[in-house]
């Protein structure tokens, strides 16, 4: 059963067609990578899937609901309730500690629970670093905090934008291992990347070029 479905989605900025009649679908529990060069429409697609932008044309079905015509207030609610976001530049609130950053996500979603937040940090191996400010954490540690923050509310979909773009190989592997664990637990993952290694970790790769789906590749080696 598909969790996410884009039907003939276009996003047009004046003359430029950032997305041109794109149709994709992502099943519940699936791990999908979206690849493509700069200007291929990756970011636009990510914004639309992440409920931060609306398509000019077409339908976006998330969990069976068309979100393409919703108000931005409603989109905020959907994003908060269903989607966990992970960004390339980590993006932590720089004056809050690691655990507080995780709790911010809980705060907007429902109730802050420090123990649960600490547990989530334990899961990404940062239990001991919970009281540190972002400036006291390495890039890899910050990204792991962001993973903990994304999964804290048990979202149906985790949307990661170049999650390993600013990481060294060791940290990249840690993050990919975390993704693999989440996948095993049944979380749907969509990872936008230009790194073939990261894409190969996924079950399926959607390649975008010039705002269109150029091809889809099934990863034969997945899980091996």
């Amino acid at each position, binding site marked *: 059963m598909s969790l996410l479905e884009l039907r003939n989605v276009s996003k047009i900025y004046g003359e430029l067609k950032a997305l041109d009649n794109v149709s994709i679908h992502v099943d519940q529990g699936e791990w999908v990578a979206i690849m493509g060069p700069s200007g291929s429409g990756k970011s636009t697609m990510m914004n639309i899937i992440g409920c931060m932008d609306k398509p000019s044309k077409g339908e976006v079905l998330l969990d069976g609901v068309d979100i393409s015509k919703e108000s931005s207030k409603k989109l905020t609610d959907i994003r908060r309730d269903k989607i966990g976001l992970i*960004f390339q530049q980590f993006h*932590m609130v720089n004056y809050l500690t690691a655990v507080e950053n995780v709790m*911010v*996500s*809980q705060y*907007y979603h429902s109730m802050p629970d420090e123990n649960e937040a600490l547990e989530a940090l334990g899961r990404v191996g940062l239990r001991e670093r919970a009281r540190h400010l972002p400036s006291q954490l390495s890039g890899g540690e910050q990204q792991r905090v962001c993973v903990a923050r994304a999964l804290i509310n048990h979202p149906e979909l985790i949307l990661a934008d170049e999650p390993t773009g600013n990481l060294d190989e060791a940290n990249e592997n840690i993050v990919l291992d975390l993704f693999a664990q989440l996948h095993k637990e049944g979380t749907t993952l969509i990872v936008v990347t230009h790194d073939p290694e990261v894409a190969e970790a996924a079950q399926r790769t959607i390649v975008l070029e010039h705002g269109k789906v150029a091809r889809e590749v099934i990863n034969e080696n997945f899980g091996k």
Partner: protein
Amino acid sequence: MTKRRMFLRMITASLLRRRSRMLIALLSIGIGATILAGLVTIYVDVPRQMGAQFRSYGANMLLLPQDGGTLTSDGLAQALKSIPDAALVGAAPYRYVRLDMTTRQQSFTAAATDFEQITKTSPYFSIEGAYPSETRQVLVGKEIAETIGVKVGSTMELTYQPSNTSTDRTPEESRVPGASLSGKAEGFGAGVVYVSAVLDDEAKIASISVDASTQTPEYGGLVPEDEGFLNQFIGKTLPLTLGEDVDALSGATVTSGAVVDALNTATEAVAAVRPKTLNFTVTGILTTGGEEEEYVFLSLGDMEIMTGEDKLDVAELSVSASVDQLEEYAASITDNNDGVQARLVKRVARSEASVLEKLTALVFLVTLVVLLLTMICVSTTMTAVVSERRREIGLRKALGASDGSIRAEFLGEGLFLGLLGGVMGAVLGFVFAQVVSVNVFGSSITFQPLLLPAAIIVSMAIAAASCLLPIKRAVAIDPALVLKGE
């Protein structure tokens, strides 16, 4: 952990861990609040401050005996109870009496008063020497001192010359039980006939005697000895008519008429009082530039010894209060004290009020300007804070923060800053006001307990108002900016 605690944790962390920027915002609110609290303190305290200053220009209320009443020292003390002690700067009683200096054949107006009170009600009095501090001492007006040539240390012999008859009573008022009457009227040949009589308990004539020495001895001159004629008067009530109440003595019709006229116009005789003379030492010469220089000032006690009366002509009060309050006090004194009326010295009271109005208006205006400047400053700082935190705001929105949450967080930070700034303002503002007060008015001010909550509420309101525009910008930030490329 509740949402509220997390909210507080976030905004306090934002303020405490991002010190430099927030310090600027805090400083602008704090300094604004300081100046505001200071100005408001001065604004509130100015009437009191200036009131005390104004009191150096002299009395602003007078207590006078009401028609037919007498003002005494006790009466004054009673009347003063209508004015709160804190407001009453001084109350100087005065009794004005004409005294003679027989050695120089001069007479002056002498003002008996309380010198301690004079220093309060008339601080502008300039004295060469000192105020009298003991009995038998006088303060002499400069003009008199120059006329008679007295100096500090000179002695003066002053005499009180009582009048023998009371002049201010009409014959009708004199016809009271037990009165001793004396009168005179023109008789035969323009000679004056003197009559004296005593009235009994029912105001009827009890006895009568006549001096007709100016009349013709064998006619009118017989009147004083003629018992038959005089006995007609006994038991009669004044006034009398010749030919109806009494018959004229045969051959002395004109003299008889003069006796009746003299009785009808007779007034009560006052027992002759001997002149009272006391010796005084001059302790000071008074210069005021006003009519006080023509007076001799002595103590109420000495005056009472000389005149035998405890009586005041007027009391000058110096009261530190607004015109409205003064009017209230005056009305209360007049209503509650028989025979005493209080009047405002309008000129003094009104000019005080107008100066105060102008001063408070000025302070108010400056307060308004500072308020505006503070708001601009805080608003600018908060706008800078918002642009500095664009990414964080975008992140929060991406994480699901609603516009309301963003508003609440920034407003919360603003209010927290306002709270801190308000406390700072109340404390520093009081210090500021104190410094201004000491340097400008030369007196310290009292701390207004309401200042603290007022300063906090006002600076929180200012901070909140200043945050409105920056918050509008924060809410407009697009969450997508946190994604790649930004």
